[in-house]
């Protein structure tokens, strides 16, 4: 009895509210309604297909998906290939290349981007012209970058040939044809493309730093180096996070750059895991192995990004 009474009492304030409540409730719900389709699409096409890929990696799917779970043979094969170093298996080549490429690409892009941004921030003349010049490579697709650098680095067509014609005949640069160095040419082309964009991110960050802090430090007698080392770079920490995440995902999905620049490299020596995944899934009709390699790529990126995000985002609410 008493419950009924309380619920009745509870209802009264709601009833008492004016009729406009429908409108205000709609207003409250509007963002959710607008976001719902893209949310649903993300759920299905990103997370749904991640689960789908994980599922496929435990089947023995070949040309077409097969739905009977048959165990972790695909992972077992990848595991065996991981230790096939002499001669290197395609999987071993792919993951070591990922390590080399990922580390150098992210490190050089961050360093170069920051350096260029600091230089451009010195209130120089013509900044408006210089900035887009550095930024434009990002507007090109990886395919264009790859083909342009392929020609430029080709000893018979590009840099080496030109310098030979100019008389410097001892000049030798054939990395793109060399199985041990070809991955570094991918780094060069990748850095060329992305560092301008990273520069723009850092430049925005630098412009956001309060001038008063800088002045205060200068009055306290800080040298320029100290100023950047102790004040500016620590203040740019959120930019480092964003830049890192942008670069990390660009690195892990670099597929087209390798194909356009090296067509896989001599004996497949320029492969990245994404090339491995595509080859095995679509060309070799080994969908289970391809899916397993995709899952491992996902795990790798999760292992790097999640702790980083966690440590960065935790400090925010101080």
């Amino acid at each position: 009895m008493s419950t009924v009474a309380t619920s009745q009492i509870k209802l009264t304030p709601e009833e008492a509210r004016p009729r406009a409540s429908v409108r205000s409730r709609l207003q409250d719900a509007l963002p959710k309604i607008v976001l719902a389709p893209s949310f649903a699409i993300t759920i299905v096409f990103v997370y749904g297909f991640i689960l789908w890929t994980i599922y496929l990696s435990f089947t023995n799917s070949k040309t077409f998906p097969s739905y009977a779970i048959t165990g972790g043979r695909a992972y077992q094969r990848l595991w065996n290939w991981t230790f096939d170093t002499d001669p290197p298996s395609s999987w071993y080549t792919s993951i070591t290349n990922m390590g080399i490429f990922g580390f150098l690409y992210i490190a050089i892009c961050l360093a170069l981007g920051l350096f260029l941004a600091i230089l451009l921030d010195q209130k120089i003349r013509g900044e408006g012209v210089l900035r887009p010049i550095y930024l434009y490579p990002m507007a090109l697709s990886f395919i264009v970058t790859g083909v342009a650098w392929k020609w430029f680095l080709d000893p018979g067509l590009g840099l080496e040939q030109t310098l030979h014609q100019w008389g410097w005949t001892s000049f030798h640069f054939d990395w793109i044809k060399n199985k041990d160095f070809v991955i570094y040419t991918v780094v060069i082309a990748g850095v060329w493309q992305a560092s301008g964009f990273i520069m723009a991110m850092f430049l925005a960050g630098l412009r956001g730093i309060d001038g008063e802090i800088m002045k205060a430090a200068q009055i306290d007698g800080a040298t320029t180096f100290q100023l950047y080392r102790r004040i500016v770079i620590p203040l740019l920490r959120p930019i480092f996070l964003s830049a890192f995440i942008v670069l990390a995902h660009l690195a892990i999905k670099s597929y087209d750059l390798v194909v356009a620049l090296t067509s896989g490299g001599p004996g497949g020596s320029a492969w990245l895991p994404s090339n491995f995944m595509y080859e095995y899934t679509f060309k070799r009709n080994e969908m289970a192995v391809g899916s397993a390699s995709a899952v491992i790529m996902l795990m790798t990126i999760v292992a790097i990004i999640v702790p980083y995000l966690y440590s960065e985002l935790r400090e925010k609410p101080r």
Partner: protein
Amino acid sequence: MLRKLLIGTALASGLAFAAHAEDVKEVQMLHWWTSGGEAAALNVLKQDLAKEGYAWKDVPVAGGGGDAAMTALKAMVAAGNYPTASQMLGYTVLDYAAAGVMGDLTETAKKEGWDKSVPAALQKFSVYDGKWVAAPVNVHSVNWLWINKAVMDKIGGTEPKTFDDFIALLDKAKAAGVTPLALGGQNWQEATMFDSVVLSTGGPEFYKKAMNDLDDASLKSDTMKKSFDNLAKLVTYVDPNFSGRDWNLATAMVIKGDALVQVMGDWAKGEFHAANKTPGTDFLCYRFPGTDGSVIYNSDMFGMFNVPDDRKAAQVALATATLSKSFQSAFNVVKGSVPARTDVPDTDFDACGKKGIADLKKANEGGTLFGSLAQGYGAPPAVANAYKDVVSKFVHGQIKTSDEAVTELVKAIDDAK
């Protein structure tokens, strides 16, 4: 009873009439023949079909190449939306047939006599479980040498008949300061050349055992080691800049006279024709030394899907037109390959084409027509690609000796099976 029969007949004929009336006069075709010569060759087929009243509709493929087309096809078939036919290669046809999505053209095949005119080796891929599921369009063969005649005359070379002759010829070119061998250092080109090397080193029997039957003993044998040694010898004659080069650029080196010879399938002839070169006077086509009498082939096929009944008439028309003698001749003259049936007159073909047709006929009769492992006609894609990996790693030095190469080859093939 009689009345029932009459009604039944009336209904049936009515249905037949209705079905006939609703026949879709359109052929939906998935293919990646979009470049100049290929598109021109395909136009012949479009016109033939237009004469019979069938419209041609290309299924659009984003990105162009064969891989993109196969990915698109997979998606279409998964969605139950079959094209009338699709350009397909080798084991792909059998994969789709095993998945039960291919049509049945056996009646048409019987009427047109395909069983007798299409080489038995090709029927392995166009006939599944006794049913015709694909129409072969052409036969390419890969054991060819393409030689620049001007360079050949300059160094005073003659047609090499054995592998040792070939090495001697390459030495002559080297001495004359010409790049002896034009090679593109991509895995499929290296493996395509190695197909010929194996046939030359081990002979037809050995090629079949090792490269088509994947017999373990043959793959491990000393003959296979010797084949790898011979490949290593050939690789010493390429220019230092060969790695990653596209096949048509390698052909261009021969056309320009920068290089003496390229080992490549007969699609290279298209490049010579595009540069207005004539066989016999500007360039020479010989069989790879020691492989005369045998043909290593690959073939383009039109896979025929199990389309709804109202589209079957169009499909039959397409298949009939594809294997008609007139189209086979007209198409292959332009494409550089040879007809997929052995009873097509060779009058319109050039010297290389005539030799190709004669060789195919001889190889078919003598049982020396073999699928190219590098081109995916020797074994399923997983095995073929494992093979390409090993050959390419051997050429580029990740695999150092022929002993190691043979061990790796056996391991890779076992793993992929």
